[in-house]
Every structure is written in structure tokens, then in C-alpha cells.
């Protein structure tokens, strides 16, 4: 857009290794907001639109829903013209596993306090997702949880469910 260096890295400079995804990704990028737009429009209609003088709760989200539908149809038609989607690689699987491990942590948190799930979560990320050595997998989680315990519970007084008190 401006007269800058032709070698200028794109804003995705850090992700230059990312592969562009095919047309299916571009279609998904349009269809998901489209479905969302239809659902919102439907729901807002149910909330009641009212009139322009006396708008009900549904009017504003209804307008947004319609706008979303229009824009998403544009995305489905225009596909790649509206920018680049990255393809999912083998590296995407750890993200799913990572997200699930966080979910497991949140489920365990109110049951047994944050210390044990915290150590497990950190160790899992270090060893399984990070490929670190056993030494680091042992030291870092215990050290971190101890520091966080001191910081959040003892110092800041945040009532995080916990097991041990000093």
C-alpha cells in the first residue's frame, strides 16, 4: 500500500513457513460465520424486533445478524480474494491436545485445588508438548506452582481453590 521496501516481510513475517490452505478452508471461513449469522438472525427475531421508534431487544442483533449473513456470503463467493488461510499441519494436533489438557485442569481445579493439577498440566506441556528433558519436567512445574501459590494465594489473597496453606 505504501512505497516501502519490496523485501518488506508481510505482517505474518513470523509465519512465513505456514502453508496457504486450499479453497476448502476459504469456504469454511465463509460458511461458519454464515451459519452463525443465520442462527443469530433467527434468535433475534424470536426476541422481538419492535419498531424503529420503539426498538425491542432483538432489533440490534437482528441488524448485525443480517450484516453478518451478507458479509459471509461475500466470503463464500470471493474465497481466496479475501486473504489467506493457513493450512492445518501435523503441528495442529498439539493445539487440540493442549486445549483438552487445559479443560481437564479446569475440571480438576474445584475438586482437588490448583497445586496437583497445576504440576500435572505444566509437566504435560513441558514433556509431551514441549519435548523437554525429565530434569526440567520435574523442576519447573514444582518451582512454578510453589511461586504461583505464594504469589496468588499468600500474597494477593486470591481465593483459588488450594490444598496447602503455609
Amino acid at each position: 500500500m505504501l512505497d516501502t521496501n519490496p523485501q518488506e516481510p508481510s505482517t505474518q513475517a513470523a509465519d512465513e513457513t505456514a502453508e496457504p490452505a486450499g479453497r476448502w478452508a476459504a469456504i469454511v471461513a465463509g460458511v461458519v460465520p454464515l451459519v452463525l449469522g443465520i442462527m443469530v438472525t433467527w434468535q433475534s427475531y424470536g426476541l422481538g424486533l419492535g419498531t424503529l421508534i420503539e426498538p425491542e431487544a432483538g432489533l440490534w442483533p437482528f441488524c448485525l445478524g443480517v450484516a453478518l449473513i451478507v458479509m459471509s456470503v461475500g466470503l463464500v463467493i470471493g474465497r481466496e480474494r479475501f486473504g489467506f488461510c493457513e493450512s492445518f499441519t501435523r503441528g495442529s494436533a498439539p493445539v487440540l491436545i493442549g486445549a483438552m489438557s487445559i479443560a481437564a485442569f479446569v475440571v480438576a481445579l474445584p475438586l482437588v485445588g490448583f497445586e496437583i493439577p497445576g504440576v500435572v498440566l505444566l509437566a504435560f506441556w513441558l514433556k509431551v508438548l514441549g519435548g523437554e528433558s525429565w530434569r526440567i519436567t520435574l523442576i519447573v512445574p514444582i518451582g512454578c506452582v510453589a511461586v504461583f501459590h505464594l504469589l496468588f494465594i499468600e500474597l494477593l489473597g486470591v481465593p483459588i481453590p488450594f490444598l496447602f496453606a503455609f
Partner: protein
Amino acid sequence: MDSITGILTGFEVVFQPTNLIYCLVGVVIGMLIGVLPGLGTVATISILLPLTFDLPPATAIIMIAGIFYGAQYGGTITSVLLQLPGEASSVVTTIDGYQMARRGRAGSALGIAAIGSFIGGTVSIVGLSLLAPVVANFALDFGPPEYAVLALTGILLVSSFGTGSAWKCIVAAILGLLLATVGRDLFTGVERFTLDSTQLADGIDFAALVMGLFGLGEVFYDLERRSRVLASRAPSVHSAWITKTDWVQSRMAIARGTIIGFVLGVLPGGGATLSSLVAYAAEKKAAKDPSEFGHGAIQGVAGPETANNAAATSSFIPLLTLGIPANATMAVIYGALLLQGITPGPTLINDHPDVFWGVINSMWIGNILLLILSVPLVRVFIKILQVRGSIMMPITLMIIILGAYSVRNSIFDIWIVLAFGVIGFLMKKFGFEPGPLVLAFVLGNLLETSFRQSLRMFNGDLTGFLTRPISGTLAALIFVVPVALVMAKRVRARRATALTLADKEYEVT
């Protein structure tokens, strides 16, 4: 209150020892987190937001200003040493900054960036102190129609000037506006899109949303990227300081960068990014030997770094005087102010002069602290850079989770963070910018409320927006700017083809 008394009040606030300490702590942790590759200013402020909740408003904002400057400089460090820009506004810094580092001049690059930022920031603060009261005064007459159109203009401009496809940015902005409608309707009390959850009746918590979208989203994105990119080694740096030649070479670049940054920063829509690009282009034009650019020209670091800091400072003007954040970073600061019970807008200067002037002066203090700290601490931060991502990421993750919990002591908020972390990751994969979403989310309530109030004022007549002078002008702008942008692109493309054709003819003859 005139500006001078205001500035003095501000210094009184900032120089209170507690505030100074919080500013200092903010700069240090801002740098500490900001230096982690991949975590830009917005992500850093989002992650550290919970730290400020228990503080009094002025102190909280002073600390955030410190975090903001620290994070920005942290991003500069990674741009220069690893060619990893934390955000769009430091992308141009990587071009010559990284080349300088490869030629063993990383210290000069980091030093000139700190000095340029300081000068750009300082001049910008003076401009801000003079200009902000004038704008605020002008904006006092704004009614709901003006605010509705202003908020809409802000969102659309951010979408069209932002990085990535403007179309997708607008889709993201609409999603943000929709997320803002979740919860009880302010006018009728009807619950909207709460999925029958009592926790959603008060709406989605802003802090949880940004921590998920920017913080956790980045962690996920990095987790995926790590399997593709090999860890790079940061070159060694002894100190961030410049030589006399460095200063002589770059002082004009700093002067130009300051002006470019201040002017462009006031405009909504990624002022910092745009100004860093314009400053780079300006330096290349002004240079005697433009071929040096891209091979470690110090002006190529000094100009853009000065400009993006000057712009970052002047983009506080629309936030503090109109209540309209100009970019994603300002949107997060806007959210932080709202959480403190302060609504930025034209009345802020009179209702909370301590906050208003405190913020302005704390920026200056933040800049000074940054300059003082960056020299001795640069080695420490480079040490952090050398800690492997696979160790830093889980720790960041833990900070995000516990931080999100501590905002409202709610486990539900951690779920929100997780959900938005996944959404943020997917948005990045599918080419949607999370910035416009957050900006629209924070402006959503203002936009809907003022839109509905305006409809009542106009008796349901939509043309009312066009007949009032200020809202009418702004509405016209919404149409003119995108058209002008498209036209400018076409003209440039045509000129480029004409030039290549001329070149070919020249070669032939």
C-alpha cells in the same frame, strides 16, 4: 482547568512514590512478557490486566501505561534480535534492525530505538497535553447520533487500515458487536444469547475475552508454529547504546518520525502501524543512498521506531477525549478503564482530572524509565529470550489461567478464556484479525445504546443521522474513505504498469 495546572496535577499524581513504583514494575514486567516471542503489546497488556484490578484507578492506569511501554520495547527487542515482530507496528523494524544485529550492531539498533521512542513519545505527549483539552471541549456537544456514527467510523476505519483483508476484519468486527450483545438488554432487561446460563447474564467478561483471544490464542499459535520453525539463537549484545555517528545519522530520521507518528496516530485505525510504514518510506526517500536500506541502515530503525511510539502516544487522544479507542491496544486500555469504573470521554478531563493528567504524565515517566532500564537490563532480557519457548509457554499459560480466575474469582471465566483461546487460534488460521473483534466488543454497548437513543430522538427516521452536521460529516466519511482507498490502489496499480511498460520501451529503444 487549563493545561498547565492540569499537567502539574498530573505530575503530582505520578510522582507519588507508590505510583512511581507501580509504573516501574509495569515497565519491567511489560518488557519481561513482551520480550517473549509472539506476545505483542495487546497480548501482554491482556495477560497482565488482572494485576491492576485491586489498585485505585489512577495507579492502575499508570501501571498499564508502564506495561504498555515496556511491552512495546520488548517487541522491538525481538524484532531486532530474532526478526520476530510482536505486532504489526514493529514489522518494518525487522527489515533493517535484524540486518544491523547480524552485522554486530544490535546494541546500536536497540539503543537508537529506545532513544527515538523517548523523543517521539515526549514530543507527542506535549502535543497531547495541548490538543486533548481542545478536542474534549469540542466533543462536549456530542449527542447519541454523533457517538453512534463515531463508534461506527472507528470500527470501520480500524478494519480497513488494519492488517489482513478488510472484508474479514469487518466480519470479525460484526462478531465483536454480537458478542457485546450477550447478556441482559440495557433497555428492556431481556436476556439475549445467554444460553440459559446465569453467568452470562451480565455479559462476557472483557478481561477473560482478551486474555483468551490474544494471550491463550498466541500460546496455541506458538505451540503449532514450534513444530515448523526451528528455535533461532539470539545474537549476543553487550549494551544497548549508540555511538556519535549513529546519532548524527539518525537524528533527522527521529525528527521526521516524530511528526509523522504524532499526526497519523491521532487518526483511528492502526495509527502506529501506518506511521511506521510511512516513516520507513520517508527515510528511504530522504536517504542519499537508498540502497543501504534493507542492509542495516540505522535510519530504517530510528524513523519507524520513533514514529510508532509517537503514534502510540497520540492515539491516546481519541481514547481520552472522545472515548473511542483508535486500535486494539487502546481498546484493551479502554476496557481496563471501564473495569475501574471510569468511562473515557469528553467529561473525563473534568470528572477525573487526576486520571486524565496522571495517564498523560505517566506516559512520560514510563518513557524515561524505559530509557533508563533498557540500557542495563537489555542483557537480562536477552537471557530470557534464550530460554526455550517450550519452557516459557507453559509458564505463560499458567499465568493466564490463574490471572483470568483472579479477576472475578470465577472458574467460569477460565472456561471463557479457553473458548476464546481456541477461537483466537482458529481466527488466525483462517485469516481473521482478532483486533477489530475486540475493538467492536468494547464499543458494542456504546454503539447500540447511542443507536437506539438516536432512533428515539429521530422518531425512527434514519435520515436523522445525515442531517446533523457532525454525524452527517462522519457518515459521509464512512463512504468516502473506503472508496478513496480503492481508487488510490487502482491509480497506483495503473501507474506501476505504466512504469514497467515505459521501462520495457526504454530497453527496446
